[in-house]
């Protein structure tokens, strides 16, 4: 069977169901192992920060959660747009399945940011461009979920949700570049592909391990949820 045919084969919810279960299981296991490794490196290997003391250890969840909040939104909008364009049921189901996980990642990024801001900036919250645009992202996720929940007919719910998700994508580059475009209290990007890392390599390792763990976790949770949605709708 050629690769193209395989893709269409798995575009049907019924054939995707068992595959989603197998991928989810592998991702649950991978997430647990990587999180254990990441927490070990983060708390026992990475040294105390010279400026922030131990408060900086919030970074191991704050940055991965913030990355996932933006990444999951783009993936959600991608599936929603695909569902809108080609009327494929599974695409819209994937978008609905990603939203709750993305929403709590956004909440977690804001929450850990507040608890990190208090000891380092002296305030839990400031109306900074980065913080404000991330808060708008949380409202976009919640709006998407509320809109879908408010419409009984799944087809109309998918269409309405997709429009909101697609329009909201504009916000993601605003979050990402906010620290360059505006004079923000929030610091600039801590990791860049073009510059040498600005932090100790063990700190970076802990952060990347946690980011991978959250990434696999998000896949596992979304696929587990999409299986429930398939069962509920089909």
């Amino acid at each position: 069977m050629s690769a193209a045919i395989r893709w269409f084969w798995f575009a049907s919810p019924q054939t995707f169901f068992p595959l989603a279960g197998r991928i989810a299981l592998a991702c649950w296991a991978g997430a647990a192992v990587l999180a254990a490794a990441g927490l070990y490196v983060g708390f026992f290997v990475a040294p105390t920060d010279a400026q922030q003391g131990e408060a900086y250890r919030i970074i191991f969840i704050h940055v991965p959660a913030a990355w996932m909040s933006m990444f999951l939104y783009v993936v959600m909008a991608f599936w929603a747009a695909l569902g809108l364009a080609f009327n494929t049921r599974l695409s819209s189901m994937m978008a609905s399945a990603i939203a709750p996980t993305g929403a709590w990642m956004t909440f977690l990024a804001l929450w850990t940011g507040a608890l990190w801001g208090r000891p380092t900036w002296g305030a839990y919250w400031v109306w900074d461009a980065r913080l404000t645009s991330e808060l708008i992202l949380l409202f976009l996720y919640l709006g998407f979920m509320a809109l879908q929940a408010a419409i009984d007919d799944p087809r109309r719910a998918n269409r309405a949700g997709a429009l909101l998700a697609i329009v909201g994508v504009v916000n993601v580059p605003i979050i990402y570049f906010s620290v360059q475009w505006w004079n923000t209290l929030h610091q600039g990007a801590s990791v860049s592909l073009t510059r040498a890392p600005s932090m100790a390599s063990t700190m970076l390792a802990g952060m990347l391990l946690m980011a991978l763990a959250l990434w696999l976790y998000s896949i596992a949770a979304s696929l587990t949820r999409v299986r429930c949605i398939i069962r509920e709708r089909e």
Partner: protein
Amino acid sequence: MNWGGWSEFWAMGGYGFYVWGSYGVMLACLALEIVLLRRRAREVKA
């Protein structure tokens, strides 16, 4: 190894409230999502 003992570990150099407040809420969100997913999976099977 960074810590002289467990009490030092939990104190987090005086930032315990902020560090554990972050990790605690993460754990709570994680546990909540897993519980809700398991319940939903059980309900659709029934």
